[in-house]
């Protein structure tokens, strides 16, 4: 029974502990003198997953010591196999933000754009996250 309670508590913390994290923001020039401004937002996202962290959590809750040790070894292998700087959780597709420029070009029928804000952020729920690139701006009408 105590283990069940611990599991429920752990799961609750994982789910309720979801939070947004801003990694980078860039604000461009804003020109309000050319006409009426209409806001737009373009957002692309990808599932982020930290496999090593997930296995470490598994090692922490494993019932037997040998399973825990095995999982810690797996976490180490995963960590050294995915070496390098990370912003948010790693993703399995490095091209998810490739289309933002073409989307921004297409979004305004007037083809006049100003006030572009680029945001790189993430929504984290334990070892899983939504890795987001968001572009906000204004069409000049």
């Amino acid at each position, binding site marked *: 029974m105590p283990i069940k309670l611990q599991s429920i508590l752990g799961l609750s913390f994982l789910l309720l502990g979801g939070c947004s994290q801003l*990694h*980078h923001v*860039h604000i*461009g*020039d804003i*020109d309000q003198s050319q006409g009426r401004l209409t806001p737009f937002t373009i957002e692309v996202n990808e599932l982020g997953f930290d*496999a090593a962290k997930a296995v470490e959590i598994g090692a922490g809750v494993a019932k037997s010591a040998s399973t825990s040790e*095995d999982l810690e070894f*797996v976490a180490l*292998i*995963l960590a*050294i*196999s*995915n*070496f*390098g*700087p*990370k*912003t*948010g959780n*790693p*993703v*399995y*597709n*490095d091209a*998810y*933000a*490739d289309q*933002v*420029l*073409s989307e*921004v*070009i297409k979004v*305004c029928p*007037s*083809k*006049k*754009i*100003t006030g*572009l804000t*680029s945001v*790189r952020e993430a929504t984290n729920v334990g070892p899983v996250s939504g*890795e987001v*690139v968001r*572009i906000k*701006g204004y069409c000049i009408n």
Partner: protein
Amino acid sequence: MKKLFSLLMVVMLSACTSSIHMSQVDVGTNSQQELASGKVINIEQSQKIFLGFVYDSNYVDQAYKQLLLQCPNGTSMINVEYLTNHGFLSWTDKIRIKALCKPG
């Protein structure tokens, strides 16, 4: 069987992860004609790094030089992306530039 499955999972999960650190779009003083008729170019430069030993970031300068060469009249809109492809005790830093060149 259980160990084989675990090994397979580890191999699969350790394949080709990436991290996009920054992706920003900037627009210059543009005219309707430039956005409608400009040519989009793609530039990618990278640097392989082993165990964190890195002494320069010349690949960024190379990307910038290519941008100047490919858009001699300048750009009306630009998207710069900085990302890392992770690997076994090594990684590859990349800079990707997509730009809308001003027509000549």
